[in-house]
């Protein structure tokens, strides 16, 4: 099996788009529907290579999830995938250890290249 990646987004459409792009590139996909669900899944999944996370989600948003993850000592690479492009939000993600930011909509080949790079280590 390929490396495991979790996609955290409240939209099934987006989870399917990401899942299809990365599955075809050989990654094993796991899904979560919001930040809280994402934290639980990350904690309970062994050998996770990275996370792709939306920002605006009900319950716990992606930036709060990132902060909680960082505060727990996790070194899991996180790539934010969101409609947000505001520099202050990007700076906040950087501060809490995100490895990258994509503004939707995304090109599958760009996402695959970024995931391959971030999971290469």
């Amino acid at each position, binding site marked *: 099996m390929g490396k495991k990646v979790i996609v955290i987004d*409240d*939209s*099934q*459409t*987006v989870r*399917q*788009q990401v899942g*299809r*792009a990365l599955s075809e590139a050989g990654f094993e996909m796991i899904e979560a529907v919001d930040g809280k669900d994402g934290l639980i899944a990350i904690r309970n999944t062994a050998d996770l290579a990275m996370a792709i996370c939306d920002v*605006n*989600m*009900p319950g716990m948003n992606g930036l709060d999830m990132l902060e909680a993850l960082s505060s727990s000592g996790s070194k899991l690479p996180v790539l934010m995938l*969101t*409609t*947000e*492009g*505001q*520099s*202050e939000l*990007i700076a906040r993600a*950087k501060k809490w250890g*995100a*490895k*990258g*930011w*994509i*503004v*939707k*909509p*995304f*090109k*599958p080949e*760009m996402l695959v290249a*970024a995931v391959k*790079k*971030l999971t290469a280590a």
Partner: protein
Amino acid sequence: MEKHEICALLNETLQGAADGIFEHLGVAVEYGDEPETEVHDFACSIGFTSKTLRGNLTLTAREAFLAQTRPKEVRHGVASEFELCDWMGELGNQVLGRFKNRLLITGNAIVLGTPAVLSGFQIQRRRGRMPLYAERLAKTEVGSLAMHVTAEATGDFAIAGSGDRSSAMPEGELQLF
């Protein structure tokens, strides 16, 4: 700013957001002027707020329009009602995200809510009581999407001077840190 100036700004911003979305989706649309006469099957509503502007984006759409515009990667056979509701919410998310990113250039940063979606019969949106509004109706050969922004602004709402404007990271772009 005067009410008509803010409405003009909201209309221009909504048009720019819509153009960007349909270009990305590869859907050729024509724009009409009478959103309230259209009857739709799905609706999505997302709130937004800032110190000087707060309001709501509402989309309503025909089922055929949503089915036609779903990303091709997820189109397998006939879409279920759940899948169309999900796409309605994500479409609203992307329209409002582009709206926000374009408004940033004017120095106004809004905080976005999350979509609420419903499906039903003969859904028609009414303009309501907010003093500011922007409306667009996008039509294809199979159906239509109505987009409404309603808002209210404080007296401090303004377009920032060139030194105070900010730009958003462009749609489709990747930054690795």
